[in-house]
């Protein structure tokens, strides 16, 4: 069974080259050259994964993703601008499964897509196999490994698969600092790369969805240059 990929990228020449490369890697590829068309195809077609560029005419990648996520849980690899421009998009709520700064080596794209797909498979398998796994409760947060549902004060939160994995790691190690390397490996299933801000972006989304503690203290603390920590509230 081949994997079907939808490539949404406004640079046609780049898109052609990339799809040629993906085909060589035994993926089945379809292309869209702007956001609107991409969204239409993503909603209608049955794809295993999406590669989505941020900067596009008509509709940018962020909006495409937002609209797609209303109904679909298709894994998405988002291509972002590089280095500190990332800071500016950190504030947006994005539900992508992984982020890759442009320009990038196509082999890296392949590796990321494979990691995402592998994780989706693992999550599916995990849901069935780990029926005996416990439900994790800390203060007002309840994390259920069986259903992969997180609820806060008995209200279900809409977390992406990556955000769920991140939160699970943080809660299991509450009070200790987890490095970005560790988090990337456990939650994204791959190694931390150069200029890699994926964990930061997921963390920023996760924070917003969780909100602070009742006393307005931050739940997740950033330890500069080291990593993240779920604070034990006292």
């Amino acid at each position: 069974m081949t994997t079907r990929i939808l490539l949404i990228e406004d640079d046609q020449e780049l898109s052609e080259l990339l799809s040629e490369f993906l085909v060589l890697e035994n993926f089945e590829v379809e292309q869209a050259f702007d956001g609107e068309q991409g969204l239409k195809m993503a909603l209608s077609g049955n794809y295993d994964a999406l590669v989505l560029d941020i900067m596009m005419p008509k509709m940018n990648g962020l909006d495409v993703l937002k609209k797609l996520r209303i109904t679909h849980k298709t894994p998405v690899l988002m291509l972002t601008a590089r280095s500190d421009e990332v800071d500016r998009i950190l504030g947006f709520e994005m539900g992508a499964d992984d982020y890759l700064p442009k320009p990038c080596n196509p082999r890296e794209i392949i590796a990321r897509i494979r990691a995402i797909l592998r994780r989706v498979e693992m999550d599916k398998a995990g849901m069935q196999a780990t029926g005996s796994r416990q439900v994790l409760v800390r203060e007002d947060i309840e994390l259920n490994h069986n259903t992969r549902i997180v609820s806060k004060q008995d209200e279900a939160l809409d977390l992406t698969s990556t955000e769920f994995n991140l939160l699970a790691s943080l809660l299991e190690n509450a009070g200790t600092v987890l490095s970005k390397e560790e988090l990337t490996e456990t939650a994204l299933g791959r190694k931390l790369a150069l200029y890699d801000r994926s964990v930061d972006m997921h963390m920023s989304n996760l924070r917003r969805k969780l909100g602070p503690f009742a006393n307005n203290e931050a739940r997740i603390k950033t330890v500069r240059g080291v990593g993240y920590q779920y604070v034990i509230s006292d």
Partner: protein
Amino acid sequence: MSSVIKWPLVFRSLYWKFFFFFWLTLITAIVSVATLSEIIVKKQDQDRYHTVVNLGIQAVNIYELQGPRALTAHLRHIDQEFDVKGFMLDAKYRPISRANLPINWLQFTLPLTQNRLSQRNLRGFQPYRISSSSGRTYTFVAHRDNSGAYPAWFKHLPMLQVMTALAIVALLTAFVTWRITNPLRKLKQATDSFARGNLNTRLPDLVGCRKDEIGEVGFAFNRMAERISLLVSNQQRLFRDISHELRTPLARQQIALELLARKLPDTEHQSIHRINREISRMNELIDQVLTLLRLEQNEQGPAIEAYDLSQVLMQLTQDAQFEAQSKDQVDLQQPVQLTLIGQQELVSRAVENILRNALRYTPADGRVYLQVEEHKDQVVIRIEDEGEGVPEDSVKRLFEPFYRVEASRNQQSGGYGIGMAIAEQAIRAQGGSIQASNRAVGGLCVEICLPKAGLAGMAS
């Protein structure tokens, strides 16, 4: 031998120059007017002398012809007509008529008889010796109204009024001077600010209310600033567009290269790898250029926050050593904890760029010293290497983008000549300063000064 006048410190400011110039001019004007009027008064005195002597002779004649009664009448007539108050004494200094005779006439005539008359005894009277045609001598004594020695006018001047006049003159001078020098000072501040890179600096209030030459200077400054900032921003936009446009073909090239790599035998992979590395290098360079442009345009950068500098430097040191594959080459000395408020990412990048350079230029067995000193309201970060340093005339130009120090710091030893420029802009954005110098023992020393709470006011 300098032809430049060595002004005392106070005179070096235009304000005090103007002030003293105006003040002295006014004082000189006052003194000259007073002197002139004094000369005129003296001239009048001489004229008066002749008048009085003539009047005296006339009076003597009347006395000799018509007797003392006529004299009394005549003296009173003179007083009214010529404003000369005088009385007449005979040869033995006895008064002939009571007309105009002061009560204390004896005090005056006594020294006259003893011939020991002095200025002091005169008490405002002037005697004139007159010989009549009959051969008898008389003395005609007239009041001296407004004659006297030169400084006399000064004695009579009311001091309070003089002081008031001087104070008013000083105030006026101060105001006039301020009107001239204040806009000049503002112009200087604006020029300084412009030179520091704030291309939005303009002179609004100076232009608004002045229509004179100084206002025109303000207008000219604004026009110049407008033009320069337009040129600079055009150039930066061009730079930015080029950099962005370069990325697209590079990205395509990268993928095309990977496609090629799959079709070529493994033996060719070394060349592929080489091309790949060059592409990455170009990407990195474009990144740096864009970063520099962003910093130069004062675009809103990373968030302003409180951070621990010590932790940042520790991490940087580890990363840099790891990258340079050198263990413990960096000698880091810093306080355990040092909280600053600012853009941690920018500071981190600045130090990183300089640290990398230092590691690059220090010999393999040499060391790099990274020292942090905490002062009252600033922090000094000093990064020193044990390399060859740079020629003295290049030290200041190290922070220019793409500036190269001749052969010793060439592409071979790495660097794109833009890291230092980024560092400078990044530190400047924190309200800090950065400078390079050669160490006495050899090698380069870069010193970064950071205000502890430089951007505290801007933090959200």
